[in-house]
């Protein structure tokens, strides 16, 4: 049994839930926090120092849209001063050349820019806003600086047939890293799953195309992709294991082992306003609950893969099987796998080309 507690390596700092985009697969919870509930600059700065002291190497400033925080430059500076590698996970809206220059001189190491597609009309349907041209302008501004740039494309049923265009856009952009992430079904994506889940044919074709791109661009552009786990044989090692590598702080200061953990009923999340980060990581009930192997049921408990995928995703186990403590139902060894097979069968019963415009549930912008 593994009981050693590793240091957290990365901190995901969700600075706000406010966002000018309304993406139908947003990873934020369905219940969004308003501006009034957000942590102050001073608390965030303390959290960054505590994170670095606890061993964290990298911080991802994300949201919502982190640019919505007027103190973002100050937080980037504080993170660098604490010795952290600083990434900004952003839609790029709203950003101007001057603020970008300020972020870079404050120590920003890397920007990850989200894309909803390679074509304005289709991207706007997913984002609920026409912003592709603005994003492409941001790419041009970034090239005036020497920071890392990742273009992140979220891929799904509605845009997979235009994957080549997205790969081409990524290649032309001059970004050092391209990420193609199949939608993961939590939060808003879970609510919109029917219209997002690809067919098997789409999945197979996308993986072949991405493997080709990865090989063709090796040494020039780093191509990474996330496969949709409903189609996988084994679950993803969600967050690299519960309470093993990452900590996420919500806009209000709750410390979570992953983006979606708040869906699991009965968990009480410690808040960074009340408790030091190191203490939350090592001894809070919620971070210990699914850490290591002690909590594991069969078939995980005696499975050779348990140190590889850590039982998969606890949130997915709850969302699909109604119990966060069982093997991730996407695992073909799970007694609940039939549920996933049914969902996949439904997704493959109709062609990917929708007969009518999907009835999306758009994510709102909280006050």
């Amino acid at each position, binding site marked *: 049994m593994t009981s050693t507690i590793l240091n957290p390596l990365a901190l995901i700092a969700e600075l706000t839930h406010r966002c000018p985009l309304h993406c139908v697969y947003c990873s934020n919870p369905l219940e969004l926090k308003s501006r009034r509930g957000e942590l102050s600059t001073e608390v965030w700065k303390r959290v960054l120092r505590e994170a670095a002291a606890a061993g964290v*190497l990298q911080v991802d400033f994300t949201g919502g849209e982190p640019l919505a925080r007027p103190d973002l430059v100050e937080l980037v500076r504080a993170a660098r001063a604490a010795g952290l590698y600083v990434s900004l996970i952003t839609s790029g809206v709203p950003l101007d050349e001057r603020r970008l220059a300020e972020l870079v001189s404050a120590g920003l*190491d890397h920007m990850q820019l989200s894309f909803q597609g390679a074509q304005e009309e289709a991207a706007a349907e997913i984002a609920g806003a026409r912003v592709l041209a603005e994003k492409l302008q941001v790419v041009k501004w970034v090239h005036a600086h020497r920071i890392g740039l990742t273009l992140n494309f979220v891929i799904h049923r509605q845009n997979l047939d235009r994957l080549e265009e997205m790969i081409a856009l990524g290649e032309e952009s001059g970004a050092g890293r391209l990420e193609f992430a199949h939608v993961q079904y939590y939060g808003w994506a879970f609510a919109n799953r029917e219209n997002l889940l690809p067919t098997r044919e789409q999945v197979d074709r996308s993986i072949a195309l991405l493997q080709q791109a990865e090989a063709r661009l*090796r*040494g020039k552009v*780093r191509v990474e992709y996330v496969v949709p786990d409903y189609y996988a044989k084994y679950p993803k090692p969600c967050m690299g294991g519960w309470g093993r590598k990452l900590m996420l702080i919500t806009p209000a200061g709750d410390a979570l082992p992953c983006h979606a953990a708040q869906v699991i009923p009965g968990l009480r999340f410690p808040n960074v306003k009340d408790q030091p980060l190191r203490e939350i990581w090592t001894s809070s009930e919620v971070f210990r609950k699914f850490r290591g192997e002690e909590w594991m049921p069969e078939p995980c408990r005696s499975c050779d893969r348990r140190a590889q995928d850590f039982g998969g995703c606890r949130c997915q186990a709850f969302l699909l099987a109604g119990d966060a403590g069982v093997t991730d139902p996407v695992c073909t060894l799970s007694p609940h796998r039939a549920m996933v097979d049914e969902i996949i069968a439904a997704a493959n019963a109709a062609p990917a080309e929708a007969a009518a415009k999907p009835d999306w549930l758009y994510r709102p912008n909280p006050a």
Partner: protein
Amino acid sequence: MNPEMHARPRLAAGCRLSEPNRDPRMLLMPERALRLNGPSLEIVLRCDGRHTVQQIITELQKIYSKAVPERVEKDILGYLTLLHDQCALDFTIEDAAAAPK
């Protein structure tokens, strides 16, 4: 890809060393980090856009004078290739016309 001896490697945009006061030293990159041991740290410290590949090899052969020089060279070229494949390095060749092929 095998790096050319007169090329000057430097860390790619978005890649840098962790602060010297934090142990172990790491090569920090977008969404990942590589732990650096003695020789790999010595190599990465010299990927500054000023040292040529040949100079890095010569300097490390001095530091690790008990090791077989050919082996040091082979290890350095292998490590630089690995970093290049991970998009952690750029190679600049200032005077391509004068460079031996």
